[in-house]
């Protein structure tokens, strides 16, 4: 996409300026983004592969991995269903307060992670609205797995909806209306027309949602209570090990999360290259 109508040839002073700008940009990207990433892996393997494997295989680490997977396995599908429902209502029907609903869906992105956890403590904690009632019935939400799941759902709520709404808006509903007129039932229309049309955007949203769900720290930190092996997800295990000066252990678990980030980035980039049109323009946001 170089300028087709550039009339003047590019002289050497300008080429030098281009080179200088490229150099500054790359130096920044390397120093600020690539170096932290490299640090994670270098520190993780500082004492060799054997120490790395030992650090990963410790029971607390394995418990943290398991818990992280469980939390994501609950939070992501729930937000997926919500995203489809919200996008369907917002892009296929006209109703009052639509703009407000859109703002509400985006809201969790503008809330500090700590506050996302805090609100659930105030709701379900010992001094919270439902605290005494829950206590009387022996239900534990805060400092337990349900709290982790709730905080994670809150933080990752917008991802899927946010990818789907602009795409479904742009696609319009003509194909779906045609399917209905030709006699398709609601579910037939959804599975044979709507879903194939949005599948790549859906995958894209799920990918981002999952990465954030597994990596969330601030919100789960507030509701977790840091009970080792029971309520510590991988990011919390990283924190605890780091604070105990177990750097190899901390970076070993961190390297798994960094790997997840790299896989997410690669898959995301691949989706953008291959199915860019089917994912459509998405607004930048708090991913």
């Amino acid at each position, binding site marked *: 996409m170089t300028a087709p*109508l550039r009339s003047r040839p590019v002289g050497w002073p300008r080429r030098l300026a281009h080179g200088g700008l490229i150099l500054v940009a790359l130096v920044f990207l390397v120093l600020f983004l690539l170096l932290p990433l490299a640090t994670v892996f270098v520190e993780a393997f500082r004492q060799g592969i054997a120490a790395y494997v030992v650090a990963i295989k410790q029971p607390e680490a394995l418990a943290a991995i398991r818990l992280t997977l469980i939390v994501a396995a609950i939070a992501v599908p729930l937000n997926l269903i919500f995203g489809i429902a919200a996008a369907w209502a917002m892009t296929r029907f006209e109703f009052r307060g639509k703009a407000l609903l859109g703002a509400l869906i985006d809201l969790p992105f503008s809330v500090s992670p700590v506050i996302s956890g*805090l609100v659930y403590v105030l709701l379900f904690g010992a001094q919270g609205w439902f605290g005494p009632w829950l206590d009387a019935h022996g239900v534990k939400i805060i400092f337990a797995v349900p709290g982790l799941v709730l905080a994670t759902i809150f933080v990752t709520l917008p991802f899927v909806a946010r990818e789907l709404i602009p795409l479904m808006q742009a696609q319009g509903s003509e194909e779906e209306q045609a399917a209905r007129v030709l006699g398709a039932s609601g579910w037939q229309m959804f599975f044979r027309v709507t879903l194939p049309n949005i599948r790549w955007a859906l995958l894209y949203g799920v990918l981002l949602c999952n990465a954030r769900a597994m990596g969330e720290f601030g919100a789960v930190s507030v509701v977790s209570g840091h009970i080792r092996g029971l309520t510590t997800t991988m990011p919390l295990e990283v924190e605890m090990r780091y604070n105990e000066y177990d750097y190899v252990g901390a970076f070993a678990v961190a390297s798994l*999360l960094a790997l997840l980030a790299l896989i997410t980035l690669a898959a995301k980039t691949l989706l953008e290259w291959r199915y860019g049109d089917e994912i459509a323009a998405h607004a930048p946001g708090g991913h």
Partner: protein
Amino acid sequence: MRHRVLPGFGISLGYALAYLGLIVLLPLAALGWKASGIGIAGLTHLLGAPRTLAALRLSIGGALLAALFNVVIGLLVGWVLVRYRFPGRRLFDALVDLPFALPTAVAGIALSTLYAPNGWLGQWLEPLGIKVAYTPLGVFVAMVFVGFPFVVRTLQPVLASLERDVEEAAESLGAQRWQTFFRVILPMLAPTLLTGFALALARAMGEYGSVIFIAGNLPMHSEIAPLLIVQKLEQFDYAGAAALGAVMLLLSFALLVMVSLLQRWSGRWAERTR
């Protein structure tokens, strides 16, 4: 009311509203309720406390500076990625999203290790008298890290759609390259840059995970507001935590409103210049 061909209005809207109500609105109502329990006197006491003021100043001031820095470097990186061709461009372009994808705790311990006095970068900065780790400067570095992608990603589509003939016209009329940039290109980008600035600012203001490891968290010096909320919770000061949380929430809502107004403004701008 016209006949609807498409099914599922009631169930999809009802489900979305119920879900939002339970997950977002009810908890936020609890925050508002608990925060209001502190009263006006309690609020002035809380906000008047030197430690609260210092934390808010660091979170807001640091986020402002980081967002400003990100606008400059984000414009440069976005420009280079959109306008120039060089080996590895697509790889670097994908790398821009790293702060979105990398869990904040991981970024936090990595930055902290990198800038510690014996770290890869810290060992070169320390002899120069530049202390990054465990100082407000470290808070700034972490805030730059988390806010960086917002500016670049907001800017890129706009940069790509800029009409080259405007620049050509300016240059054929005798404008220097820098004049074209500051008088023609920059004014066209201004609304987008402001949006990116606000997004980066909102993110940095509430950031927790990537900051607390590098900050050192000394009260009055390098303690951020979200950490103060956590501290209050740990001391069972629920009302104080809720009130401080509500204050920060209102600040980011104000920003959110600003962003949407700016987006509307830049949309109108784009229409007018088309």
